[in-house]
């Protein structure tokens, strides 16, 4: 039975709808994982030398012992955020003649197939079987290995169990995060040290190897608790990753824009009621911090704004480029509905412009705080802002009419390459390169400020031509709307 389930999972993976378009992305991800695994393997075998050179003079075993629980503490936090719950795939099996215990067994086995479970083994086991074995003999090496494997299992099922509980009780996530933050703070203020604790635990294991059996016991207990919880709660309604509450319904501010405002409000709802666009927007806010990387004192003093323009374009237009690059695709699932409805497409496109302008303006206001570092930054940013709202939006929307891939809204944005095609990468190039191209001749001619002025001016001129641009995008859109709709239908 288990084999049949796994066989189905395998088929589901290979027959997944998005596979065709993203095979390159998958190969890329695969290579990344392989690279990381190779790295882990290398580190695993070379741990002795690495510790020796990083902490010269320190006892290798001491560092290693301190590292084990530290690693698993971080591992646990990572799992809480990144590891997926294998749940929804069981729906078609629930009504069939399959005992519940087998479905639970499948869920548990399935959960073991995670890269998270591979890394610690590759990282620690080589060291345990070589260095520890040489130093303390096979028994203690075995106990070390057993501890590592058990901790891995423990983390795996504990994280899943807590995640499942949080579906029921959202408050729990704050308790867990609070506890993690508490431990982190204690560690930071050197009140409680995980590594010291880890050290103490494993020095006991070296003296009394039997103590290590605590870890497999813990792992078994968590596995059992998790399995029991699943058996008692095997209702998809309850296992689903949290029923979403209705959020933010009205945007009275947008009401004054008439139909354009209504369409913009519709899109805002789309953003805030789905995981992926929401995380795309949150991600674009995180990029506000880019300034700290690019706005360097020496660059400011020398009046070389090239890289700063890049960063400023990216920040002030982050929502435009990150959200906008999949434009129309967000609405892929109901695109036919938009087409058949009495939507004025001129307004439809104007609504996108409106949204871009509002979001870019807000972000520009936020990043204006960088102006406290230097007034030059303000100049660069406003030039970039005018470029973004004036011309950047046009470029993005033009390429959007060439995007035939819809976006699955329910998935999160991180490491998600669904709907990403070559056009997305191509589109970002002119968008980012154009401001640099405009600016560069002035830089070479030794009048960088004129370059900024020119960039801003081009943006403003383009902004004043918006009516023309709307017609232009509309024409492009009408040319390809059947192809867009057909593409969305295929994938959604």
């Amino acid at each position, binding site marked *: 039975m288990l084999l049949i389930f796994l066989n*189905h999972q395998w088929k589901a993976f290979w027959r*997944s709808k998005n596979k065709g378009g993203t095979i390159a992305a998958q190969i890329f991800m695969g290579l990344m994982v392989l690279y990381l695994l190779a790295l882990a393997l290398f580190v695993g075998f070379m741990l002795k030398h690495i510790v020796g050179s990083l902490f010269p003079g320190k006892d290798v075993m001491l560092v290693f012992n301190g590292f084990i629980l530290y690693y698993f503490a971080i591992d646990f936090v990572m799992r809480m955020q990144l590891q997926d719950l294998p749940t929804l795939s069981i729906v078609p099996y*629930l*009504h069939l003649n399959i005992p519940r215990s087998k479905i639970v067994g499948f869920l548990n086995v399935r959960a073991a197939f995670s890269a998270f479970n591979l890394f610690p083994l590759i990282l620690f086991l080589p060291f345990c079987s070589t260095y520890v074995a040489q130093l303390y003999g096979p028994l203690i090496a075995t106990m070390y290995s057993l501890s590592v494997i058990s901790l891995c299992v423990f983390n795996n099922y504990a994280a899943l169990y807590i995640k499942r509980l949080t579906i029921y009780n959202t408050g729990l996530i704050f308790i867990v995060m609070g506890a993690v933050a508490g431990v982190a703070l204690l560690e930071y203020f050197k009140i409680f040290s995980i590594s010291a604790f880890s050290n103490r635990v494993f020095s006991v294991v070296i003296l009394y190897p039997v103590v290590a059996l605590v870890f497999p016991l813990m792992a078994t207990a968590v596995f059992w608790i998790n399995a029991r919880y699943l058996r008692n709660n095997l*209702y998809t*309604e309850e296992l689903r990753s949290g029923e979403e509450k209705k959020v933010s319904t009205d945007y009275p501010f947008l009401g004054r824009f008439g139909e354009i405002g209504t369409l913009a409000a519709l899109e805002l709802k789309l953003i805030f009621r789905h995981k992926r666009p929401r995380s795309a927007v949150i991600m674009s806010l995180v990029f506000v911090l880019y300034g700290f990387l690019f706005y360097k004192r020496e660059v400011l003093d020398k009046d070389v704004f090239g890289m700063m323009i890049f960063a400023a374009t990216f920040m002030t237009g982050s929502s435009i480029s990150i959200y906008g690059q999949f434009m129309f695709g967000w609405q892929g699932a109901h695109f036919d509905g938009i087409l058949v409805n009495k939507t004025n497409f001129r307004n439809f496109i104007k609504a996108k412009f409106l949204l871009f302008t509002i979001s870019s303006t807000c972000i520009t206001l936020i990043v204006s705080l960088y102006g406290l570092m230097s007034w030059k930054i303000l100049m660069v940013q406003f030039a970039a802002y005018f470029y973004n709202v004036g011309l950047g939006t046009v470029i993005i929307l033009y390429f959007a009419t060439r995007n035939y891939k819809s976006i699955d809204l329910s998935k999160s944005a991180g490491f998600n390459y669904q709907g990403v095609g070559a056009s997305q990468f191509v589109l970002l190039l002119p968008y980012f390169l154009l401001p640099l191209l405009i600016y560069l001749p002035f830089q070479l001619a030794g009048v960088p400020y004129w370059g900024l002025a020119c960039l801003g001016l081009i943006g403003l001129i383009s902004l004043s031509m918006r009516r023309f641009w709307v017609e232009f995008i509309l024409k492009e859109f009408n040319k390809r709307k059947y192809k867009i709709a057909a593409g969305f239908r295929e994938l959604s």
Partner: protein
Amino acid sequence: MILEITNLKKIYGSRTVVNVPYLSVNEGETIGLVGNNGAGKTTLFRMILDLIRPDDGQVLSREENVAAGDRWKDYTASYLDEGFLIDYLTAEEYFLFIGGLHNLSPAHVLDYLKQYEEFFNGEILNRGKYIRDFSKGNQNKVGIAAGLMQHPDLLILDEPFANLDPTTQIRLKSILKSLKHNRNMATLISSHDLNHVTDVCDRIILLEKGQVIKDFRKDENTLRELEAYFRSNLLD
């Protein structure tokens, strides 16, 4: 009694979606569940199939609580919606999988499917298509045929006639009738098509806002009575 429901309740927020103090289904009975949208038909089915946890009460299938054991799965087959299908399999793969669960050999399954060739109308088997790429009507056919293949004593279908073409609707009705007579299979069907329900079923249960408001044997007046009920809703 193949099903015995006592004091069954499901509440979402402040709304009681299903509230059935008592309901029983005898072996071999064909029951039609009718009621407007939101009457609780599908929710009731889901609780019978242990897909939703009731807030109160229980469903006994041959004297065993469905939430407590798996024995009822041996003789119960169901098809409520496309979520029941494993949509990345081809139809054959799906049938073989279901057959395997009931210890039917692949040869047996393929042989069994032969009798449904007419029902499938040449659109299901050997098409090299995944179930997800079928039209809704054809997905429906796969689900229903997979249910029938399990030789159930209790068959639960949610709006089986929806999305089916008229010819297939008639075929499905004759299949259900013959199975009832030949194998004494109990059937629970929900439908919005009063003609079909009164044609196939020998007992009708009328649900409104989660409550059973009528439960009666079918006779020649049933169709008219049901139509009168639904029309009276219109006037309110």
